[in-house]
């Protein structure tokens, strides 16, 4: 460091005084922005990054669509599923069919699974569960949360404590990011009411993941989904069948095998 710079930081001369003022102003600015919690969410998010070097902000996460798929999009068979995490039959479908499909036909590139949320209004916590799942999906933890929800459905259905199972399903750093998304999700979650109804009517747009749930609901309404689970099977891009209810893995596998011949 040269003499001029030393002089500037040692406080001697106009340059030194100016630099001191500049540093003081900068520190004051950091102090002010770091403690401003009363500002609107967008401003808080920016200052949080600057002051605390936090993980990606809510605004950044909100623009990343959640990935709720299993397998390769190039698989010859595509299975689109519309489910509700609080639906008992959906749980049976997950436990008795989807899990085996994922470890077998999805893993071998035969089937590509696309999950869509279709939370029914009759299930009190299904909308909130969909929010958690979508938030987890934005950080790449959808599979873990889906498994956690279905494995513990009876428990969280009783008390609505979903966070307990989400936190246990992922590393803390991922949970912190998920929680950062969920902190603005305080309004009623989007759920399926009547076809054509706006899923965001009660939830508003404050929760970043609600738009994805709403999109899934609208897609389901478009496809005439009226129950969960409903699955739509495509083969080489063509829709083959749409069915609702549970189907066991051996039966579904048998059908897939005829398509793959």
């Amino acid at each position, binding site marked *: 460091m040269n003499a001029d710079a030393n002089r500037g930081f040692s406080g001697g001369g106009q340059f030194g005084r100016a630099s001191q003022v500049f540093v003081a102003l900068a520190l004051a600015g950091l102090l002010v922005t770091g403690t401003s919690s009363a500002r609107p969410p967008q401003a808080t998010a920016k200052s949080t990054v600057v002051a605390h070097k936090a993980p990606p902000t809510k605004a950044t996460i909100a623009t990343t669509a959640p990935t709720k798929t299993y397998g390769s999009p190039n698989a010859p068979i595509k299975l689109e599923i519309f489910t509700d995490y609080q639906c008992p039959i959906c749980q049976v479908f997950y436990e008795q069919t989807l899990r085996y499909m994922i470890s077998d036909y999805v893993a071998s590139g035969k089937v590509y699974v696309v999950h869509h949320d279709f939370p029914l209004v009759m299930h009190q916590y299904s909308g909130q569960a969909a929010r958690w799942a979508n938030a987890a999906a934005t950080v790449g933890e959808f599979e873990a949360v889906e498994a956690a929800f279905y494995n513990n459905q009876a428990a969280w259905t009783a008390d609505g404590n979903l966070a307990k199972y989400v936190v246990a399903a992922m590393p803390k750093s991922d949970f912190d990011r998920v929680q950062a998304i969920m902190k603005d999700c305080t309004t009623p979650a989007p759920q399926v009411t009547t076809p054509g109804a706006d899923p965001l009517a009660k939830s508003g747009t404050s929760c970043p993941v609600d738009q994805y749930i709403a999109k899934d609901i609208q897609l389901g309404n478009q496809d005439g989904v009226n129950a969960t689970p409903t699955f739509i099977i495509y083969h080489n891009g063509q829709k083959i069948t749409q*069915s609702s*209810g549970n189907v*066991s893995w*051996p*039966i579904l596998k048998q059908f897939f095998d*005829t398509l793959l011949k």
Partner: protein
Amino acid sequence: MDAQSRAKSGRILLILGRVALGVIFLVAAWSKLKPVLPGQSWSVSSVETSLAMFAMGVDSYQMVSSGTASTIAHVLPFFELVLGLWLTSGIGLRISSLISTLAICAFIYAMFSAWRRGLTINCGCFGQGGPPIGPKEMMRDGFIFLPLSIALVVGSFVVNRKPQSSSTGEAIPVAQTGG
């Protein structure tokens, strides 16, 4: 209307009834066996795919194991095909109508069981698609198909389908029992 006219009317109604019920079973069989893939033509492979798809429908009732569901799915369409042809032919109508009545009762029971358990599934009676099982579908089977089948059973026992003639060659009134 004299006895001869009544007998003739009875025979005509019996023919219409068995043909109608026979066609219903034939349509049911065809809907389960027809190719389901776009652009696919009839072949052994297409039938295999169709039967595998029907198996999903049977399995969705959650009444039997997956193995049994697969077996039912592979047998039922051919059973309906044979029964449809049998009814339409009129041969052994008493037995065929009894069997069709029992079959329809079984279908109604399965639909009622699924509906009572809150399963929102398709009937699968005439192929994939259609509305979920509900009172409408059960009423269709319960108030149209079943009465038709029962009427055939009764009619096959009561109505003599072949007109009888006396030793002089004159037609005589048909007996109302037996035949």
